[in-house]
Structures are given as structure tokens and as C-alpha cells.
């Protein structure tokens, strides 16, 4: 599959909110090498045809779609993990741990799929397409790469849910987001502990501020931008109505 990732630029200012701005990554771009083009104005951008791109939407439904996107990403990743040779040859403890993560993320994914269907009711055209992913840069036979990627995804999940809580107006959804984010944090801690067992990394100073001991909270635009940097998300989408 040709790697063709769209990075979404999310302007902060309201006056840009109605304008979609995209950035195509070269298929040869390496993860984290900063080959992203900056996107200052429309003249620099090759906008793909609109029908190729969907927007996450507004309000609670937008946040649900956002969470669904993240859970699809994690579930797809762990599906590949448990089909890789690192996993099949791992210690029983590590195998079980990663199988648990696969189970949890697939459950989360299907939960959001069902919740979104319930939310949109008969308006089935509002259902967003299933996302495609390409983890081409990750070697699923290599423990270090698998765990390092898992760490990024879990920490990202924590930061994303922490940042999205304030965007929800239905208290029931806030509670469910809370029920899920703490499990993501439990995952992040466990993965970090696997990578560096005899350390404080499970709740490390790189994610928990030293002064106030607060975990990361990111707006959707920042999370989507970070995901664009990984090159994992193939299906283009925008989040023009989320901060």
C-alpha cells in the first residue's frame, strides 16, 4: 500500500475554522525527521478533493469520532502486534500483557462504533468511514520497536482523553471517557515498565510535570498533528470544529 499520509493543520484562530488546510507527506518521509512542510496559507497547499476527506464533526459527536479514530489506531496496532513474531516468542507475562492491551483496545473501538451509531440514529450518512493505517515503519518482529510504538500510542491516548474531557457536554460521555483514560494510563505505565523496569518511567518526568505532577493533556489539533508525524494514519480526515 502506498503510504500517503495527510497531516492536518489545525489553526487556532476562529477565522480559519471553516477552512481546511492539509499537508501531504511524501511517501518517503521518515518518521520524526521533520520533513513536514509547513502550511502557512492556502497557496502552498494541494487540497485533495473534498470527497476524499471527512471531518470529525462538532460537539460530543465530534469528540466521539475523535476517540473512535484513536481507538481504531490502537486496536489496529495491537492486532498487528499479536500477529507478529516478537509477540509469539515473548515471555508468557509479556504475551499476556500485550494480548490484554489488544483486547481492551478492540473493545474500546467497538464501543465507540456502537456509541456513535446510537448517537446518530437513523442519520447513517453521518457515520464516518473506517480508518486505514500503515505501520510500515514499525518492525513487528522487534521488541524494542513494538514497545516504543506502544508507549507513544498509549501516552498519546492519555493526553488525548485528558484534553478532550472539557469538550464534552454530556456527563455520561465524560464518565465513559474517564473510565477509558485511566485504563490507557494503566497501559502506558505497564509498557513503560516493560521498557525500563527498575525506574520511575511508569510515571516518568517526561510525561508527568515535576512541579505539579500533572499528566499531559492535549487538544485534538495537537494530537492529530502528532499522529501526522508518525505517518501511521492513511485515511485523511480533519477536525475543523475541534480545538
Amino acid at each position, binding site marked *: 500500500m502506498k503510504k500517503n499520509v495527510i497531516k492536518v493543520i489545525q489553526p487556532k484562530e476562529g477565522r480559519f475554522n471553516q477552512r481546511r488546510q492539509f499537508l501531504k507527506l511524501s511517501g518517503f518521509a521518515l518518521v520524526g525527521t521533520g520533513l513536514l512542510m509547513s502550511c502557512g496559507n492556502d497557496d502552498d497547499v494541494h487540497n485533495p478533493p473534498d470527497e476524499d476527506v471527512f471531518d470529525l464533526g462538532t460537539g460530543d459527536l465530534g469528540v466521539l469520532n475523535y476517540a473512535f479514530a484513536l481507538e481504531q489506531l490502537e486496536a489496529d496496532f495491537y492486532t498487528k502486534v499479536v500477529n507478529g513474531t516478537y509477540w509469539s516468542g515473548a515471555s508468557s507475562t509479556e504475551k*499476556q*500483557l500485550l*494480548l*490484554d492491551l*489488544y*483486547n*481492551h*483496545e*478492540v*473493545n*474500546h473501538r*467497538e*464501543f465507540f*462504533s*456502537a*456509541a456513535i451509531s*446510537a448517537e446518530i440514529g437513523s442519520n447513517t450518512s453521518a457515520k464516518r468511514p473506517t480508518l486505514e493505517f500503515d505501520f510500515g515503519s514499525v518492525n513487528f518482529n522487534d521488541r524494542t520497536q513494538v514497545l516504543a510504538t506502544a508507549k507513544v500510542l498509549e501516552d498519546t491516548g*492519555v493526553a488525548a*482523553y*485528558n*484534553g478532550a*474531557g*472539557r469538550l464534552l457536554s454530556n*456527563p*455520561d*460521555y*465524560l*464518565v*465513559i471517557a*474517564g*473510565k*477509558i*483514560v*485511566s*485504563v*490507557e*494510563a*494503566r*497501559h*502506558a*505505565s*505497564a509498557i513503560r*515498565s516493560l521498557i525500563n*523496569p*527498575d*525506574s*520511575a518511567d*511508569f*510515571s516518568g518526568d517526561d510525561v*508527568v510535570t*515535576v*512541579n*505539579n*505532577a*500533572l*499528566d*499531559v*493533556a492535549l487538544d485534538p489539533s495537537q494530537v492529530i498533528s502528532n499522529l501526522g508525524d508518525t505517518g501511521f494514519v492513511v485515511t485523511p480526515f480533519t477536525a475543523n470544529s475541534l480545538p
Partner: protein
Amino acid sequence: MNIIKFLDEFKTENLMSVKASRREIFGTFGSLGKRAALAAIPFGLVAMPTRTYAQTSGDPVSALQLALTLEYLEDEFYELGLQSGVIPGGRPEIVFQQISQHEAAHVEFLRAGLQGAGATPVEKPTFDFTVGGAFDPFNDNGVGQETAYAQFLALAQAFEDTGVRAYKGQATNLMGSQFLTPALQIHSVEARHASEVRRIRGLKGWIVRDERGEGMPEPTQAVYDGEDNVIQGGLDVTTIGSGSPFTIDASTEAYDEILTGDEAVAIASLFIVS
């Protein structure tokens, strides 16, 4: 503000059977051996309602005061643990030093937040982590290093898992306030801690059904009651797919449940003398 007064006020209903203070409750067991009686009291008994009470919503200050109370408890517990010499060097010491620093920071953060909101932070209570002699997590009473450390770990797990559930239970009370996001940022730190403590104890980092886990004293069950819920947003998550992700184990591990304010207060109250 006095902590006991606060805890009483925090209760959303005047649970009569529960109105008695901790001391009075314990007093009713006075004819029994104190130690045996205390060990038999579930964490949540003191104020365990027979049904779930709806909380008054939209009181961020009360939510933060509850959070501060729990942070005081954790902070002092880890500080005393680190001073006691019960925690082995290496991974345990590194881990609990980090957790201790975080809880101390949370105390300061919440106190400052409350003051910034014009509220007076609750005073730090006097704690009794032996619960009247039932436990000896710091080996103060000579239970022995090994047993003391086992009890320390068990209580640490109970406190962290309680913290995760309690913060989650307060989220809706913080909706629309500037404290929601910071509270979520603390909540996930507590979950990171909980996962690590559980793994040090040889358990999974996540809660399976409503199991407190091997080696956890029966009185800690109140921390885990209700964790076996599989209905999320009206959906039975064991039925939304097939295969291993939708077993009862996976479906309960994948979602942490809330504790109501009353339930969290009941658990914390067991360790509060005054």
C-alpha cells in the same frame, strides 16, 4: 475547616445508620477484640449505603476538597513508608519515591487551586494507617519487615485504585470548571501509579472483574466492588463483538468504574482519626 466536619458535610444524604463517627462505629465492636473486629470491617462499611445515592452535581469545591483529602492520605502514607525502612531498595524504592513526590505535589496543587478559587482547603487529618492495630505497614508495632512491606503494598494498591475511581467519580462535578482538565491530569497519574503498584504485587496493571487480587485483605474489597460492571453507556460491552476482547474479563478490565463521593469518603474515613 475541620476534616471530619467536611466529610460529614460532603455526604449527600444523611445516612443515619452511618451517622456515627468512625470511633462510635468501632465502639460498637468494643466487646470484641479490637484487632479482630477492625480487621473484619470492610473498608466501605462505615458509610456504605444500601443503594447508590445521586450526588449533588456541580460543586467543584467539594470535589476538590475530597480529592485533597485523598491526596493528604496518600502523601502521608508514602512519606511514612519511605521513612520506615520497610521498602526494599532498588525498584520498589525508586517507584515509591516517584509516587511520593507526585502525591506531595498534588497536595500543594490542590491547596493552591482551592485557595485560588477563594475556598479554604480542608486541614490535613490525623491518619491511622494501622486502622487501630489491624495493620502494621511501617513495622512500628513489630509485625516484621516482610509482613509490614506486604501490608504496605496492599494498602498502596488500595489507595491508588481508590484514587483512580474517586477522581473519576468527581469528574461530572467539575464539568464547566477550570479544574476539570487538571483533575483529569491527576487522575491519569494515579492510574499510572496504580498499574505499577499492582505489577510490583504480581498482578495485572488493570482490574479484572471486581477482584481485589491475590494477597489483598478482604476489608479492601470495597475498593473493587462494582468494577465488574459491563454496561457502558447503556451498551453491554460483552455483546458488541466476538472473541477474546469481549469476554467478561476483558470487558471489565477495559473500563475502570467510578466511586461515588460517599463511597470514597467511606474508604478514606477508615484511616482518619480526626
